[in-house]
């Protein structure tokens, strides 16, 4: 196996790993806050769950890009030879979703945790708490798109 393949797999691994870590941290933080609210009022489980789920999407976006890379380099059957240049290109293309996904999940976790306070004190305004958290998600979505377009645009000769 050549260096190119190595780089490409590294890219796929980064795309899955970093946002996954970020999401885990984000979800953990919101989950802890949510559990606190639910001890007081178990009926708020559904509302808090929405906020807990939000920082989890980055991990999914990362997996998505990782999967597309794996498919592209034929890791899921029928390996294709990858030149070193192409491999590096794929690695670089994975960076937006890897880095933005990672940090935005943590940032979104912070916003969603604050939103848990809204759920606790003003349960009718849960929609606003979710909207705030979704504002952060925008950047993960944009990064996903950029990574996807780049990976998609790389031609394997």
């Amino acid at each position, binding site marked *: 196996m050549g260096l190119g393949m190595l780089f490409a797999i590294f890219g796929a691994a980064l795309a899955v790993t970093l946002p996954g870590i970020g999401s885990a941290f984000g979800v953990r933080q919101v989950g802890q806050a949510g559990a606190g609210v639910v001890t007081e009022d178990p009926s708020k489980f559904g509302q808090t769950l929405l906020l807990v789920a939000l920082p989890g999407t980055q991990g999914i*976006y990362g997996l998505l890009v990782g999967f597309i890379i794996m498919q592209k380099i034929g890791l899921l059957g029928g390996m294709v030879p990858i030149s070193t240049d192409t491999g590096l290109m794929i690695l670089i293309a994975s960076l937006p979703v890897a880095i933005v996904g990672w940090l935005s999940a943590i940032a979104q976790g912070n916003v969603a945790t604050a939103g848990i306070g809204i759920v606790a004190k003003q349960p009718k305004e849960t929609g606003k708490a979710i909207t705030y958290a979704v504002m952060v998600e925008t950047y993960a979505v944009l990064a996903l*798109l950029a990574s996807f377009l780049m990976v998609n645009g790389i031609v394997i000769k």
Partner: protein
Amino acid sequence: MLLSQLQELGNFEVAEIKEAESTWQAWMTEQPTSTKLQQLEEAEKQISFALNLLAEHVTTKKPFLAPQPQIAEADFLAVLGDKANIIELAEKIKLLEQKRLDFGSNNLRLQAAINSLKPWISLDAPAELIRDSKRTKILLGSVSELLAADFVQDAAEIGAYLERIGEAKTENYYFIIFHRQMEEALQAIMKNYNFSKFSLQQETGTVAELTNKLGAEIAQNLQEQAAMQEEITAYTASISDLQVVFDGLQLELAKERAAVKGLYSAETFVLYGWVPEPAAEQLVQILHEKTKNIYLELSDPDEGENYPVAMHNNWFVKPYEMVTDLYSTPAPGIIDPNPPMAPFHFIFFGMMMGDFCYGVIMSVLSYVVLKRTRPKEGTMKKLLTMMFYGGFSTAFWGILFGGYFGDAGAKIFGLKPLLLDPLTQPIPMLALCFGLGLIHIFTSMAVKSYLQIKDGDLMSAVTDQGSWYLIVIGLLCLAVPAISPTAPPVIATIGKYMALFGVAWLIIFKGRATKNIIGRFFGGVLGLYDITAYMSDLLSYSRLFALGLATGVIGMVINSIAMMVSGGLGWIITILVLLGGHIFNIAINLLGAFVHASRLQYIEFYGRFFESGGFSFAPLKKDTKYYDVI
């Protein structure tokens, strides 16, 4: 009574009477009786306590997805006729529970007493014998086992008689007899060794006897508690009666709470409130039919008065009111934002789900749940109905993009996307997203200009919105030759002049509020900077692509994982992976599609024209919790 009639109609909100309205206030001095309200609230509290308590004792599970039970009005009233008894029953249940809890705390106390007696259990002298005499005294107490040996030695040295009765944990327990002469010396020793005294509670009998007596008392208490528990459980048969009375009280409470907002004289009373205009005529007519002794006056809200906001929309737009409810109640006077918003939410939501099979599943599921539970008007019903519609949109986009359980349709049946495949044609897909986004933004600008024109501010409408229409469309026309070289070049020329005219208009009129000519010019130029806002708003619509991609690609991932394990007995795992995976994919993307579709409305659409600050119309109506009275 008038309030019952209003409640029956359900479209009149009783409001507080403000100073200005009440010129007759001087002779409307009777206070409305609030004692009845207090009584009702008290009864409601009793019943809700009883219901909560009984709910813990109910063993049968409520059937899944059961609708709210219905009850005929005659039956409802029949049970209500027995209201006093049922409220009494609730009080009885509460007392019973309180007594049961008392027994519980009593037992704790008894158990603590038994525990403290435990080390003394082998003290076989009855209490009546443990008495001080003329010359001797008797002491009971304990000392730490580490010091015990020394303590015994010291005490014996001065001539006291000690007997070890028992030990518990790290303490040794002693029975001491001593001559009164030794008292001071012994006190000093006891202080030295931190001796803690113990005095028997009982007058007669041995410790063992007392312990047995307390134990018997506990057993007795437990028995009584069990009996009470059973009695409470037996009352679960009356749950439905309690629920009916609770609902009955709700109806009365609503009326009473409205009634105390009125003004009263000895013989008359005044109510003030809101009725939606379309229902007003009918309301007046019905009330006049019911009674002759009434004077009604209808008037429009005063200028600047903050009146309640009610939405009236058709079957399609209605569920989408929920999206606006999550955002904010619009201020009175601006138009209902739901009709222009609903179709976009419908389209965007479906685009981000984008899978034919998912759409069908969503619609079928939400239809079944709607039919089974028959939810009342409210958020739940709106949400389910929206999912039902959203399923159609999802299925529609699924056909256009070729999504059938991810790539399963394409793999197995070779189903081709009708419009384009986002995975292989990302640029046309992005263009589609931006195109829809542009229509969305233009629509919100149109709503804004409509509002401005309605306010008589034609100039703002033309400058703030009109010039931007020209600039954006003009720039688009300019780009036409770059996209399709065959298009006539005149389009680009027209576009150029449109954009230039728009820019010029903006520079000249944007700063019209400023008197200073130079300030006005710079105000106009600065206005051009808004182009960045339009650009970022537009880019925001790329999420339509990204989230649609997420649904599709995760579906693909699930399918490939499932296929990897197939073969042999692996097909069981394959089915499990497919089932679990696609359910997960639907769930996570439902959340994503809903919140992002809503976000696009809140930020990009409502951001341009929405004014919040209203409050929702809350009419006096028949609102029950447990039963649907028919």
